């Protein structure tokens, strides 16, 4: 009994904070997404799925959701491939690899807001390096962040630049875990490097790739600092993402019902990603 009380006292402070700011808000958000807040003229009350119907008929929500899916579908695989290329390059015995590794990894240590400021400058019409380059090769001035066709891809480039180096360290660690004996045996058998890469290296990197993909997918739905800073979702919602939509609904429009319903959609997507991760990782227990 004494033991019981001690244990509960130890757990209580942390549990209180986690429940108060994660579990309770999650439940409350879900419940409030089924109710309408009382506004002038309307009483409010239980409305079932009405908020969701409104959400789906809101073009800016549909754009944000679609944008976010495209954003994830591009940033995840591109970050994975670039991270693997970086790791392979830095893992080989080439001169200056420490500098290279730093060049790839430094962006991940910068705050997203600093990355956003750097890329705002990089993208600036006339002064930015990107614009100078496109003018140099004769593509003319492109207002990367101001054009509906390029705003979302411009945001993707920022996200990829920020995160690929982070994923590189996981690939690097995995590559260094591949026993050198395998490579030696392959050499003795006269196996080509290309074949070895496809049949030995890639399969051994499988768990890392899975982990990196899930992390990148979660980032794609949870990080919108650069959108707030660089485009405010514009122009014309072209670069708006789900969490940015939630932020706007909650803090610009003060439309808490819409914000709650959109948050639930976001939570469902994250839940889906988490269950994919658990399902796949459950089988790969040998990983770390």
């Amino acid at each position, binding site marked *: 009994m004494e033991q019981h009380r001690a244990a509960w006292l130890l757990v209580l402070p942390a549990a209180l904070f986690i429940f*108060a700011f994660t579990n309770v808000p999650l439940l409350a958000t879900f419940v409030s997404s089924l109710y309408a807040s009382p506004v002038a003229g309307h009483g409010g009350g239980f409305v079932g799925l009405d908020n969701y119907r409104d959400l789906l008929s809101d073009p800016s929500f549909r754009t944000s959701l679609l944008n976010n899916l495209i954003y994830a579908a591009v940033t995840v695989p591109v970050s994975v491939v670039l991270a693997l290329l970086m790791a392979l390059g830095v893992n080989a015995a080439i001169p200056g690899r420490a500098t290279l590794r730093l*060049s790839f990894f430094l*962006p991940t240590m910068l705050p997203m807001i600093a990355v956003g400021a750097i890329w705002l400058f990089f993208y600036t019409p006339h*002064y930015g390096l990107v614009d100078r380059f496109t003018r140099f090769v004769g593509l003319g001035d492109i207002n990367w962040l101001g054009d509906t066709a390029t705003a979302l891809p411009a945001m993707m480039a920022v996200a990829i630049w920020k995160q690929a180096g982070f994923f590189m360290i996981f690939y690097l660690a995995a590559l260094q875990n591949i026993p050198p004996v395998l490579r030696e045996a392959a050499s003795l058998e006269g196996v080509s490097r290309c074949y070895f890469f496809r049949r030995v290296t890639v399969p051994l990197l499988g768990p890392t790739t899975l982990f990196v993909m899930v992390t990148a997918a979660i980032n794609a739905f949870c990080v919108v600092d650069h959108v*707030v800073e660089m485009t405010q979702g514009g122009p014309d919602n072209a670069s708006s993402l789900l969490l940015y939509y939630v932020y706007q609904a909650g803090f610009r429009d003060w439309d808490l019902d819409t914000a709650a319903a959109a948050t639930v959609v976001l939570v469902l997507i994250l839940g889906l990603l988490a269950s994919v991760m658990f399902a796949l990782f459950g089988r790969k227990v040998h990983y770390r």
Partner: protein
Amino acid sequence: MSDTDASGWPGRVAGTMAMWLFGLLWALPLLYAIWAAIHPPLYATEFELRSPLTLANFAQAWHAAPFARYFLNTVLLVTFTVVGQCVLATLAAFAFARFSFRGRDLLFSALLLQLMISPTILLVWNYREISWLGLANTIPAMGIPYLGSALGIFLLRQNFRTIPSELDDAARLEGCSLLGRLWKVYVPLSRSTYVAFGLTSVAYHWNDFLWPLVISDSVSTRPLTVGLEIFATPDQGVQWSLVTAATLLSSAPLLVAFLIFQRHFVQSFLRIGIR
């Protein structure tokens, strides 16, 4: 190791050159920002090798906005959050690792929900709660939603469970109290877990933006990230020399810390797997 690659050394040289080009391209945004920050505004976007170098932009940026105050706010916020997380997580992890009590496993899985849904996602409702508590626009408000850390509890519990109970029993026989045992046996033997969790958490909260943005509303609470965002996106006339200087200034402490403790940071990230 014999080389069975058909292309031999020319292939390797080409591969090295390609990697270098890749590395250079990757560094370009940062190099361009550094260039603009260390040259007079007139030369910010002119690549004249003999452009005069200057540190004036840094000094000017530092005074153009209350960056000193922003720095202080960030340091306070990060210290409060990370110390609080470590203390609360240590207590909870000890209970989960060494006690059996009714509802333990259920409670543990309920808390782990936070690994999937971070408080940031729930910012609209958390804003309501913090306002209701009368804490909006305070420095603690920016850290409070994160004080209970499921990740911290999870990592420490795993580590505590590997500590032989003989050590615990020995301390108990010597008359050590419960908290005394925790402090003298468990905490010292988990140092590497604290370092890994601490570094990851410092990096996360130093860089955190969205939650501080909605909950802080004045110079006396705004952290660096929010201050920098306001400075970098003025309504008119961006002075890139100043913005790039301010950007580098506000990222500098973490970058310098990283350069010094590179191995520790990388090990921590690898161990924890998220930022």
